[in-house]
């Protein structure tokens, strides 16, 4: 989780990602960020996020995103 929070705060240093659960709704993460975020996560966690899981729902909070990453790592 710490690694993910680090990646996220690199992207948006002003956001408290541990607490925020409406990242997309509040415009804190935009479509500009998704490609880079996914690329970074795939590098760091050595997973491939399938396109069908790339949705506003997945990016609504750090927690939601982390649980997706965990599920993917377990599947490996």
């Amino acid at each position, binding site marked *: 989780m710490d690694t993910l929070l680090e990646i996220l705060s*690199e*992207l*948006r*240093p*002003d956001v408290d990602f541990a607490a925020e659960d409406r990242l*997309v709704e509040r*415009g804190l*993460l*935009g*479509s*500009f*960020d*998704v*490609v*880079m975020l*996914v*690329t970074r996560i795939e*590098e760091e966690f*050595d997973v*491939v*996020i*399938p*396109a*069908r899981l*790339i*949705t*506003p729902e997945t*990016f609504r909070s750090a927690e939601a995103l982390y649980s997706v990453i965990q599920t993917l790592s377990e599947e490996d």
Partner: protein
Amino acid sequence: MKTILEYLDLQAMLRPEKAAFCDETVCYSFSESKEMTMRIGSVLLSAGANRESVAILLPRSATMLLAMLGTMRAGCPYVPLDAELGALRLSSIFERVQPRFLIADESTEPIARENGFSGTVIRISEAMQTEPDLCALADVYHRLLDVDPAYIVFTSGSTGAPKGVIGKHSAMLDYAEQLTGVLRVTDKDVFGMQAPLYVDACLKEILSVLRCGATLWIVPKRLFMAPVELVRFLNDHAVTTVCWVVPALTLISSLHTFSEIVPTTLKTIAFGSEVFPIRQLHLWEQYVPARYINLYGPTECTGMSCWYEIDRAFCDGDRIPIGRPFDNTEILLLDESDHPATEGEICIRGVCLCHGYWNDPEHTAAAFVQNPLCASYPDRIYRTGDHGRYNARGELEFLGRIDNQIKRMGHRIELGELENAALKTDGVSGACAVFDPEKNRLALAYTGTAEKAAVVTGLRGSVPEYMLPGKVLRLDRMPLTGNGKTDRLAVHRLCFPSKPSAVK
């Protein structure tokens, strides 16, 4: 023909029941679109609007498109706005234009009031239920000229104040003719529109609908975070044509989307003048057989000015040309002493030229100048500030900017505007913004005692979302060049350190 409204009237006769402007909640046919624009125009006239700018602040929707065309019915230029522009940009536009009238709904009216709009609000839902006043509309149209302003759209300005570009009806007509010819639009085409409505980029779809009887679907913004759903949307609505910014296309190709779903109805894919990574282009070409067209053009020349259809294989690192100008547009490449050259500043001639910048004679005079190759009569050209050259095949190539303007997600950004906004935060003593076009990353380096978070929070309140830097870096001191200027290259290296590519 004086305005594109005459195309709408024609389509309403030829194919009245066909879908014209659609979004997730509503679909207006051509006859409904004609009727609604006449109602909106009539309400503006009866409220007293008299050949003056009318602001429109509505959610991005088919209804907003009708409000734009309805404003034209009243002989008034429209000023399209969106809440996502942010408080500072909105209030600065209201202050510069001082519109007396605003078209809004219950959700957007408070936003306009909070940002300094003090005039009369026309509620769109009420306007669309009012009987049109045919005599008043005819009278206004009779007095309207094709050189009158049709709209004002705002782009980033280097000093911090946004510039209002004034488009005219005759240029829109010309653009409709040339663009639909290049895209080969017919009434069978369905457009999936990605652009926001507050920029001139949305004209491509609007004009194709009006000129050729095509259908337009506004693609919801949230789908540009959901690539599979995005492609499903295109397939469900049988979208044949997209004119998208490059990052919207690479969102699909770079996230393994094609292994799950492939667009099946696309025939024409046009994209803007940003770097299209060749690897991503190849993925698209591999999965989606279509015409791929690179478009280039500044807002000041009404949408796009040049086009190139991909007709050969490109390799990594190749530059996709911008090709040649649209018919009825001329490109001049001028060197530093204003002589024609094979490499130089891209300058544009033609009816496509806008009137200039709203209430800004200084910037207008600097950018819209007498053609240096014509000494005998007034002949205006627009200096784009873009650097171009002809390649060995005689195709025009875009090389970059002469100044510090960049293009990101289709939006023009003056790095100076971002720097000035950062300098307004307490504790920021110096600022330098840099851009990496390959990765589409914008970074801001600053000096001073301010916390990073405070700098970003300050920016969030003062610049549109698309201008927010993806990376913020605090420096102890700003690197300077030998003659004391900010060393942008050094800042670039600090913000984007090149590391050996990760071994996977």
